[in-house]
């Protein structure tokens, strides 16, 4: 098995607002191996994106703060680095792709300039070399005739092409870890499939580890080796993708999988989970899913369930597993 490149241990990221403390990430632990894709799936507002931003330490300060845990990247705890040292990791070792390709490129610079910025920042190359690197990054993302595209401005490109450019910026320094925060949500279905296939290929070529954040189980099935299911700031179940779909252990996971519309089943009504996710400012006592759980016992609303490893690489936080 390949080396663990990122290990997140008991990460807690809180937002301190006037109304109270929002526990956006509340004790999240997972790891990613080189060449592996780890998916984080969950409803909107469950802390997926904040987890991604915490790894890069790019929270909106001063409200958002990492209050506990460790983020160990390649043997270094990122939380112990100075701001300047952290900047060295961003872009060079750890890259991130944002959701909306229409707004994540600067409208006043050409595509070439924007990719070159990252290359210049981290590799200290001369201009001719920079252009070579930029073109090879565009080639990696399979962008046709990159030499011509270099001179284009973002508004001249389609959404799919822009997201490839964003991917090229992310991959331009050949990072060891890529955090993809719903990169295909803003794209249409055919382009989405292409983009995912492209990243699988890039991963094979470069052995980059990917954290794939999404709410789409279809994408998870297609792209990820392992998945963590996140709910209200915590990962409730982690498993190999195949196992998770075949034998989900946490009631929340099975409920989520059941609420995906399927062509091979004839249901009258699509299944949905009763109730609303809890407010992150005011979490229920015990298991945070217990108020909505159909299998809740007395203990569930009293004590938080521990994480139990039920088989190799499959762990669940649920009292029902005891």
């Amino acid at each position: 098995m390949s080396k663990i490149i990122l290990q997140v241990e008991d990460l807690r990221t809180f937002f301190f607002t006037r109304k109270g403390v929002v526990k956006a990430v509340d004790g999240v632990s997972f790891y990613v191996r080189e060449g592996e894709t780890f998916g984080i799936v969950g409803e909107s507002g469950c802390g997926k994106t904040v987890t991604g931003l915490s790894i890069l330490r790019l929270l909106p300060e001063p409200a958002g703060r990492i209050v506990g845990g460790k983020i160990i990247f390649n043997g270094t705890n990122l939380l112990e680095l100075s701001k300047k040292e952290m900047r060295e990791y961003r872009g060079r070792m750890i890259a991130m792709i944002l959701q909306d390709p229409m707004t994540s490129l600067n409208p006043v610079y050409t595509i070439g300039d924007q990719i070159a910025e990252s290359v210049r920042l981290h590799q200290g190359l001369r201009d001719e070399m920079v252009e070579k690197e930029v073109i090879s990054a565009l080639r990696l993302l399979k962008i046709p005739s990159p030499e011509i595209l270099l001179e284009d401005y973002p508004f001249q490109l389609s959404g799919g092409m822009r997201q490839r450019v964003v991917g090229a910026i992310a991959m331009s320094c050949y990072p060891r870890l890529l955090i993809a925060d719903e990169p295909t949500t803003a794209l249409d279905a055919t382009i989405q499939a292409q983009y995912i296939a492209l990243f699988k290929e890039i991963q094979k070529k470069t052995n980059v580890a990917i954290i794939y954040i999404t709410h789409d189980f279809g994408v998870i099935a297609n792209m990820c080796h392992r998945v963590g299911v996140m709910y209200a700031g915590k990962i409730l179940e982690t498993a190999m993708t195949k196992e998770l779909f075949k034998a989900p252990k946490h009631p929340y996971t099975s409920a989520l999988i059941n609420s995906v519309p399927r062509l091979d089943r004839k249901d009258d009504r699509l299944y949905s989970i009763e109730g609303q996710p809890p407010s992150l400012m005011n979490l229920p006592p015990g298991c945070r899913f217990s108020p909505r759980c159909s299998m809740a016992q007395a203990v569930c609303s009293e004590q938080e369930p521990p994480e139990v490893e039920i088989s190799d690489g499959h762990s669940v936080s649920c009292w029902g597993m005891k």
Partner: protein
Amino acid sequence: MDTTKVMDWDKVRGSTRRMRISSQLTFVLPAAVLLLLVLVAIFAPLLAPYPPTKIAMTERLLPPVFVEGGSTAHPLGTDLIGRDVLSRVIYGARVSLSVSLLVILITASIGTVLGIIAGYLGGRTDAFLMRVTDISLAFPGILIAILLAVILGPGYWTVVLAISILGWAPYARLIRGEALKLREADFVAQARIIGTSPARIMVRHIFPNIINPLIVMATLSVGFVILTEAALSYLGAGIPPPIPSWGNMVSDGRNLIDSAWWISFFPGLAIGLVVLSGNFLGDWIRDKLDPRLRQV
């Protein structure tokens, strides 16, 4: 099919052409006026028929050439002590235009730097800088100017300083708002993701995206600066005589406005022309830079 005429293409083409011409006119005309005045200011010694401070007591209060009693020797007439109004308007362009250019450069620079810093860094820096801006906006500018004129003595640099000392505040306000908006933009997040430093983000990513409103505001404030200079001169806190500025010429003629109106009228006309041209040019630039109004 050919009986149904969907659209009269000749008409459409005609109207777009008319639109293009009118759009060009709102640029060409004010730009030409401003350019002409700048050239007049630069080549003042060649263009002015007399030295601007030359006194001729025998030729006092001559009316302009097109009024009865006027002479071609003084096309725009003479003032109370026989100085040629045309020559003074020409030389006055030097002071008035250079003051406004300098003031705009100074205020726009200070306002942009402070605005970007306040907007991007936010928090306490922002709160502090914006309170200073509030105070500057609330202060009566004319009062400060008079105070400065008393302390430093009236003069060219006193005027520049007096208008600049508070003039940066509206820029800081505007730019801070833009920077605040851009701070949350995805491409700025993207820049942070690749490890760009805050200073570099401000210079490379925020600044180029606020040039549009900056240019619009700068052109629109040409009028404000010239009018303030005129107001200061009118109050005696501006450019001291005998150096002509459009403002102090208007002020000189104010007691004789019913008998010798031309002393105030021609410099006033020049002020009006510049202000109007600046405003038109600013409007045109704003329309040009707005993507929704572009390429109509």
